[in-house]
């Protein structure tokens, strides 16, 4: 192993001493903007512009065919006061978030802990457990899921309760399980976080006579809390926006009896099935505000339970 082959570290000292040590700020920013431009362009054209248009549409009656007609806050008042199905979709989504997020995080953490203590084959199992996250976002897996949980499907044959996807009390569980199964991303992040916890903390605890459980509660959880918080925030935001599994498992209708009619699915239904794009846009903005509020609340509560090692040093 030789490091002399790499010229980079020696390049700078060779420069003429007359040159400024750092280029002017403006020039450096210019280069940054050039490198950022694909992303900035994409963000403006594909994210910010549609957002602005949807904000405008949310105050209109727009059926896709005729030009939008300004109706002020009518969409919003209809949503809150005259649409029972809207409120059902809100309740369904909240139920889903409360079921799916804790289950997914718990499973991710358990698997990450198991992987961490593995001596060999870690890379293989890490990939194996991550695979569902790559597959799971696809429509095809959701369709397989529907077949598995349908009457006459695998689960029906094993448990014999007639197919979860056709039972209003169970269909949302089938949707949530599909999400929980895709615990790969939080698992990998947990694993990275676990590996950063200094081993000497555990050694010291072991010397003091702390058992496994005590070590977990007193070292792992606090040291991991920033990662836990990060995963919690991201998965909560994603769970509020769940669409594909609910769409595929219910055949696009949110059934049976609206039991899987999650917020985004109802939004899609209003926009693309019933052609009320204005109403759908208004729903999207309410969702944005609600997720924003929930995230803000999470950040606020985090002060009392998330432990940042660097803050402790200060």
């Amino acid at each position: 192993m030789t490091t002399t082959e790499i010229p980079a570290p020696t390049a700078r000292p060779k420069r003429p001493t007359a040159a400024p040590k750092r280029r002017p700020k403006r020039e450096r920013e210019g280069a940054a903007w050039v490198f950022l431009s694909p992303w900035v362009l994409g963000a403006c054209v594909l994210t910010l512009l549609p957002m602005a248009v949807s904000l405008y549409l949310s105050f209109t009656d727009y059926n896709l065919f005729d030009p939008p007609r300004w109706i002020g806050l009518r969409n919003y008042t209809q949503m809150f006061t005259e649409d029972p199905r809207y409120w059902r979709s809100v309740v369904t989504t909240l139920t889903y978030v409360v079921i799916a997020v804790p289950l997914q995080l718990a499973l991710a953490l358990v698997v990450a802990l198991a992987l961490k203590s593995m001596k060999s084959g870690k890379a293989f199992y890490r990939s194996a457990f991550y695979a569902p996250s790559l597959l799971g976002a696809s429509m095809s897996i959701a369709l397989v899921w529907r077949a598995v949980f349908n009457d006459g499907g695998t689960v029906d044959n094993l448990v014999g309760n007639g197919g979860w996807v056709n039972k209003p009390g169970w269909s949302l569980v089938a949707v949530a399980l599909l999400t929980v199964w895709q615990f790969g991303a939080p698992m990998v992040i947990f694993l990275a976080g676990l590996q950063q916890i200094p081993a000497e903390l555990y050694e010291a605890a072991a010397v003091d006579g702390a058992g496994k459980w005590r070590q977990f509660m007193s070292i792992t959880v606090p040291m991991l809390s920033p990662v836990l918080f990060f995963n919690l925030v991201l998965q909560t935001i994603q769970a509020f926006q769940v669409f594909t599994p609910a769409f595929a498992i219910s055949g696009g209708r949110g059934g049976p009896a609206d039991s899987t009619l999650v917020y985004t699915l109802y939004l899609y239904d209003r926009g693309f099935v019933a052609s009320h794009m204005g109403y759908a846009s208004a729903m999207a903005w309410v969702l944005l505000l609600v997720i924003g509020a929930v995230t803000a609340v999470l950040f606020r509560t985090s002060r009392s339970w998330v432990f940042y090692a660097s803050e402790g040093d200060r």
Partner: protein
Amino acid sequence: MPGHRTKGFCASAAALALCAVLAGCGGSGESVGGGGKVVLRYAWWGNPDRAALTNQAVALFEKRHPNVQVQTSYSSYDAYKQKLAVQATGGDAPDVMQLDYRQINQYASGGVLLDLGKQKALLHTSEIDQGLLATGKVDGTQYAIPQGRGTETVVYDAKAWKASGVPLPHKGWTWDDWADDMRALAKRTGKPGATDPGQNEDAFEVWLRGQGKSLYTKANGLGFTADDLTRWWTFTDGLRREGAVSPAEQTTQLAGFVENTPLARGKATADNNWDAPSSGFLAFIPTGIALAPMPSGEDGTPGQYFKPSMFLGVSANTGHAKESAELVDFLLNDRDAAKILGATRGIPVNESIRKETESQLKDFDKTISDYQASVDGTLKDPPQAPPSGDNALQSTFQRDYDQVSYERMSPRKAAENYITEAKAELRS
């Protein structure tokens, strides 16, 4: 991960994820011709057996027009209508598209469809019954051409029904006769007699018309009250509770393909459907199916009617109006195409082709033809094209009935909900 950057990183990641909420809807694709050929896109809804025949006919068209390549696609009705709505509004509708009676008003007034009157030189309509042809007109302009004539039917597993010993359905039977038969079938076969018709807006319309009422008034308002709908849903819900029609778990799976129906899945003896797509059942019931008229009102008033089963329209944005018109003309007026297509979209609308091919129709095409002949002349005039809100209400109807069949709402409560939703839908 633990470190002073974590919190800021966390916040920005959260902000990014939030933005994804609002940027959900994307753009549309563009079809490009390859090898100097004109590429047409042609889309329809239907079962796989219809797709096989249509692709055969399209292959013949391509043979006759070597410079044209036709890309076909099909799906179930539910999926088709959603996809087409999105494509149409993006200005990306297929060049040639199959349309339902429900879609014409909305699409024509939305500027999606080409004025076919201007393509008279290539697209001949002189041999189509003028009354039928007029159903494709909106405000005097011919935006679509009817492709077939269809009517509703009670389709049943002929062998199973005979074996049950229950007398076969007869002309002029009423809804009460039908209900009695379903109960008898359930008793003798040990499974529900038919699909629960409560979720089906079409079946409700037949029942309603049997009482001299209609789904919509001439002024495009609702033609029935919450009381009417409550009676219908009480009737069907009662049969479901008795086990005479399919349970909620099966009814909720219906999605526009015959494969999801209890009849095709071997869980019932009968279903109601339009006559032409009923051929799809043959793939599941090879021993044979038969068609009976829909039940009529108590005083014998027939509720079913002949309606244009579907239309062909051409996109206003097509770059190939000439070739599209030729394809439509071929599908409607060509003798060889008619031989291939048979009655997969209903009995042909071209009068001379119909007369020529009537005697040559075989298998299920003949069943459809005979069935139509048996009710021809006894039915009442079809209603005018439904208002554009009806497209969405069809799904709403199904959903609200889910609440009834899963016993989460009384028929009265669900019916009142539907009326509220329908009024809002028709107003906007």
